[in-house]
């Protein structure tokens, strides 16, 4: 039995992927109502309270449950109205007036008013609420007094009638609209209370297209269509079931069996099989990368306090080789902003140039002769990486790259909590893996925490390279205040060039995800600002019913049983 099972696993590991269920329909077909969408993740959510949940899966579920004042546009470059019909920004950038739609209802039937938006924002930012992104809103007038309990309300958020909300800022902040489009600022029902209450997470209530149905923590959450949603006729699905803690291996089998309609978390081997399968050709799509991965160099610790040494490291790395290990999902990157972020520049930034790297090593005082292997940095360094991640594999490749310029290091892998604790402590870690995923699609979300001197502290530094550049600080401040998006992006481009030239980071790669869905799932378009934006998809019920009939065919006959091991013969 064990041998046959071992064989089964081996065969299973190499079994060609089954074909898609259903056939692509007429793109112009009108949406149908009905059906439950089934999706899964290998992780789980800890809470569904938008005031405190900020991980990727929780965020995608919150978009089903909660409507916001505004949302990121489908191209990720701007904003579209949601609860607010429109808004006006004053010339001095210090005041934004939102005009709310009339007649929008919460899931409990109560109308959404401007006072609910203010109440919900105050609830999220209340000092008793463990909100992980409270400081995103720190430029709202009165924020400090409110979080330090010197004021009972946020003075900068003003209700002017039932449908007008005014937000005043203590200084111009071009990220305000972005952070208001996050679920953290989403209005919640009055039953949520004035401050965070742990009971709310067991019955989350907002004004989104789906309302809470049931939740078994660690297993699944079910959400059903909210018939009172403000967009007539939408959403189309009867509901969504989001399963948690489903291993990627099982997700693939469930997807092929039609037990999942959409899949995103594919193992590398399965991803390669789907990409190579003719049956899946033209189906599925890559998400644009929202995260960037790098090697940070602590500019306060020798030898990385030497700019030529850091630049030599950046010039010695062949980024294409990193991408060859994970073809498709890992893309070589030489600039800071990943493709999904406004301001991304596809032109090369930090380039591989071995001759230049050797010259820079000489300039840094560590000449290295690659023929004799003499010279280079005299001591072995330690590189810290996050265990159970691609970081470790990347580090092994970097070992070979840097050995060519006489820099040798050993790898120390550790879990991310320990990694963060150590690398963010001053004068503790010389270099290691780093990276950043967009909290919201804006360049400031990358530059300010990663490279501004404001982000340096003794114990909790987000600027892990401890990189200081007053010119960069001034540029970032100017960009934050700049009202014109075009001029802002130009300023961030300058900032990017400045950082790349000083090389506190050697930019390595961006990682992206491939999404697949069966052809009977219609109307899905990947959103550059978030994953799994499935709220307004619909299911071709006829096509799905046909394949479900096939799926639940009677168990295999004895003759078929003998052939069960035949790979790829299911569909």
């Amino acid at each position: 039995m064990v041998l046959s099972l071992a064989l089964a696993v081996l065969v299973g590991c190499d079994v060609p992927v089954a074909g898609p269920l259903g056939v692509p329909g007429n793109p112009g077909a009108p949406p149908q109502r009905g059906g439950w969408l089934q999706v899964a993740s290998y992780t789980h959510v800890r809470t569904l309270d938008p005031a405190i949940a900020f991980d990727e899966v929780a965020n995608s579920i919150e978009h089903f449950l909660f409507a916001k004042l505004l949302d990121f546009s489908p191209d990720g470059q701007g904003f579209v109205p949601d609860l607010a019909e429109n808004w006006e920004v004053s010339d001095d950038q210090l005041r934004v007036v939102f005009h709310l739609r009339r007649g929008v209802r919460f899931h409990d039937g109560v109308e959404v008013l401007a006072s609910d938006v203010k109440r919900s924002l105050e609830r999220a930012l209340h000092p008793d609420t463990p909100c992980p992104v409270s400081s995103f809103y720190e430029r709202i007038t009165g924020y400090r007094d409110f979080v330090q309990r010197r004021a009972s309300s946020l003075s900068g958020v003003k209700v002017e009638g039932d449908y007008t909300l005014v937000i005043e800022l203590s200084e111009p902040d071009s990220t305000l609209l972005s952070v208001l489009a996050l679920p953290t600022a989403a209005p919640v029902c009055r039953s949520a209370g004035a401050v965070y209450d742990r009971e709310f997470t067991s019955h989350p209530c907002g004004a989104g297209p789906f309302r809470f149905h049931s939740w078994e923590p660690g297993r699944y959450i079910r959400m059903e269509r909210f018939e009172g949603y403000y967009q007539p006729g939408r959403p189309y699905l009867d509901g969504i079931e989001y399963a948690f803690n489903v291993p990627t291996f099982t997700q693939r089998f469930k997807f092929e069996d039609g037990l999942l309609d959409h899949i995103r978390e594919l193992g590398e081997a399965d991803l390669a099989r789907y990409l190579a399968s003719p049956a899946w050709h033209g189906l599925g799509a890559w998400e644009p990368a929202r995260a960037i991965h790098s090697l940070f160099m602590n500019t306060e610790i020798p030898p990385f306090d030497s700019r030529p040494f850091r630049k030599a490291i950046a010039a010695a790395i062949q980024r294409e080789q990193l991408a060859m290990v994970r073809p498709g999902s890992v893309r070589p990157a030489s600039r800071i902003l990943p493709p999904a972020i406004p301001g991304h520049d596809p032109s090369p930034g930090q380039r591989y140039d071995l001759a230049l790297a050797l010259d820079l090593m000489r300039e840094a005082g560590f000449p290295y002769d690659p023929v004799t292997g003499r010279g280079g940095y005299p001591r072995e360094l330690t590189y810290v990486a996050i265990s159970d991640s691609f970081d470790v594999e990347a580090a092994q490749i970097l070992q070979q790259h840097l050995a060519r310029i006489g820099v040798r290091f050993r790898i120390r892998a550790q879990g991310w909590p320990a990694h963060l604790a150590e690398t963010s402590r001053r004068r503790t870690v010389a270099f290691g893996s780093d990276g950043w995923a967009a909290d919201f699609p804006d360049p400031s979300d990358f530059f300010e925490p990663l490279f501004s001197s404001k982000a340096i502290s003794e114990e909790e530094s987000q600027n892990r390279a401890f990189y200081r550049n007053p010119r960069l600080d001034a540029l970032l401040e100017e960009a934050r205040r700049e009202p014109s998006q075009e001029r802002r992006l130009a300023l961030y481009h300058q900032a990017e060039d400045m950082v790349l030239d000083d090389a506190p980071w050697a930019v390595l790669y961006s990682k992206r995800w491939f999404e697949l869905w069966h052809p009977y799932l219609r109307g899905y378009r990947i959103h550059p600002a978030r994953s799994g934006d499935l709220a307004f998809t619909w299911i071709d019920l006829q096509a799905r019913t046909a394949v479900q009939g096939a799926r639940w065919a009677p168990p295999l006959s004895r003759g078929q049983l003998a052939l069960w091991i035949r790979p790829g013969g299911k569909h």
Partner: protein
Amino acid sequence: MLSRALRRLGASTLVLWGVVTLAFVINFALPGDAARILAGPQARPADVARIREKLGLDQPLLVQYRRFLGRLLHGGPSSLNPRDEAHGSCTALGPIHVDLGVSYQQRKPVLVLLASRLPASLLLASAALLVQLLLGILAGTLAAVRKGSILDHGVVSLTLLGVSTPTFFLGLGLQYLLAYRLRWLPFDGYGTTWPERLRSVILPALTLGFFGAAYYTRLVRDEVLGQLRQDYARTALAKGASRLRVLVVHVLRNTLLPLLTVVGLDFGALLGGAIVTEKLFRWPGLGQLSVDAVVERDGPVILGTVLLASSAVILANLLVDLSYALLDPRSRSP
């Protein structure tokens, strides 16, 4: 007998205190904390600091430890209000309250979390133990009575394979064969009705039980062979008792005694230690809860699961010890 039980109970309490204290200190000493994990890897320092203060993680070790112990058992009202700040996470046993605190990550009382996971763990542990015992006793006995035969060699080889097969490998194989290819059983999950649960527990129980069954087979085989060589077995056979009767009535009965000791230890371990199996089959048991808690540095849940798992092992051993005294007259002498 009673004084023996009381002595064991006293010693067990000390062991429990030691284990929980050790877990507390280790969790405190590790770099990074629950506030950082709750806030996420990219949270701004001011937000992490605010959450740390809110959870009381900015306090020194001794203050946190004193608060934990003080809360663990204390007095209070018999009826509880979940919104009561002081007693919202308590379970009242009359005027005595048990309080393991609130999960940092899930924001629920730890006792509620443990209580919600315990039935699934008990079901899986019992089913896995049943698989282990049935397979182990049957295969072990057959191998012993057919010693030196192909069957014996086959069983011994299989047990070697069984103890050396990683759980995740066997689990994936079973899932692939019985759920994906043959569609006889569900892939994973716990079901919502009892018939669904009984179907759902088969795959994880087989996965978990197979490893133990291999070990039990070897144990039973050796023990049966030993017992068959004893004078009492030879006498029974000489007196004309059938081989089957001697095996079932005399030999197996004596074989069960050493098996009982192992079963006691295993049940406790299975209750909280089926981590890989629970993860693979999405079984909502204590193993998955504890591993999530460790990954997320969720101190109250770590301490709760440590306390529960240690109690289970200690209680199972205590029961085995006491039952040993009942089953084996030789162990009753002072």
